[in-house]
């Protein structure tokens, strides 16, 4: 093997600049507004089943696209744009659940420290889910581990293919299928422990558009 010592410091720098320029020229250009118009509804739907109420869903969807607007230049086009957006949404949702869990534990500690005080209403910081969500199976899904919950949302709410789900969750295809299978099994177990069965889940009448919290 012949080694040619041609690369001086100057030539190496020129080569690095050339490679960086080629990479920048090959990254896809994205129209942020058009992408938002196209994908906002589906991201909002996923946020709704994840959060349980439309206000948190609005916040989640809004924050997803604000992150997208700020960092769209990082999208390299290796996956489709909406799978990238779902990845942002799920990360934001995971963060919110952890914050909410910490807040709820703190509230529980505060209330347990004062057992004499009668609590007639939940604290203002507690999340409020709408009745439609509470009555749906998604209320049970919220109790599952993150991996199973997210796989079920992407599969049965967003109707994504297994390969797309694997891209979003950054896990192998087999893991996606396993999480979906075991998520459904865990759902069934939760329903059985609650005394519910699939046949007892009320079907929503089509004309029912009155929303009660």
């Amino acid at each position, binding site marked *: 093997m012949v080694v040619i010592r041609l690369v001086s410091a100057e030539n190496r720098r020129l080569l690095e600049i*050339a490679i960086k320029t080629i990479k920048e020229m090959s990254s896809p250009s994205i129209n942020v507004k058009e992408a938002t118009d196209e994908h906002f509804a589906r991201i909002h739907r996923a946020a*709704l089943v994840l959060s349980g109420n439309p206000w948190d869903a609005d916040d989640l969807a*809004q924050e997803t696209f604000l992150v997208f607007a700020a960092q769209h230049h990082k999208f390299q086009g290796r996956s489709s744009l909406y799978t990238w957006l779902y990845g942002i949404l799920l990360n934001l949702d995971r963060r919110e659940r952890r914050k909410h869990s910490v807040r709820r534990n703190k509230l529980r500690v505060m209330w347990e420290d004062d057992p004499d005080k009668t609590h007639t209403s939940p604290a203002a910081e507690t999340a409020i889910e709408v009745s439609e969500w509470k009555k749906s199976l998604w209320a049970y899904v919220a109790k599952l581990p993150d991996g199973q919950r997210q796989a079920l949302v992407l599969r049965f709410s967003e109707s994504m293919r297994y390969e797309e789900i694997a891209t979003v969750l950054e896990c192998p295809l*087999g893991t996606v299928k396993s999480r979906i299978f075991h998520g459904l099994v865990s759902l*069934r177990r939760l329903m059985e422990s609650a005394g519910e069965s699939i046949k007892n889940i009320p079907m929503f009448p089509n004309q029912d558009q009155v929303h009660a919290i």
Partner: protein
Amino acid sequence: MPFNVHRREDEWRDEDFIEDDFSTDQFSDEDIDESLLTDDLLEIAAQLGDDAAHLQACYPAHRPSVVDTILSETGSENRADARHEKAAASTAKPRKKRWAALAFGFGAVCLLVAVGSISVRSYHHEVASNSNGSVASSEDTRAITEFRTTDLEASGGNNEATVFEASSTMASPTITEIGNATGPQLEALYDYLEDEDQEVRLSI
């Protein structure tokens, strides 16, 4: 008391929450197809989809105005950047092309000098040819391709070791000259490049 999903949130207990069961994620890449799902699991899956559709119908997406505001601000920032970039684009594009051309030329130089140095070294080694016409060095493990033999023959060189004396006064060859360089010139080039203090100047 069975778990009731309608229980008030302040009444939830720790055992109401399923902690992350990482063992459920440590599956092999076994394909669990939906054909393995039992009827009740399929019903649950179908119900999940129906519930999601119903929730979306009840609470359709409406983009908050702040999103459009932020996007328009981002867009205006981008437009300002675009104007700035456009002003510099007249010099940026040729500059980018120049870097790309420099990188290409640099690669071409590397290839040509590598070819040249192999040819130069072949004058110093005893070579043996086999019945297929390929050559092999008897002194070191460097692979010498058939091209070298052909090149030697075409240039009238021979396989015997030849000693070249590089002229210290020989000027460094430019890129355009390498293609027509003879063996002694390539030898001189190789010795010239061996000197670590030398810089390779690219002229395109």
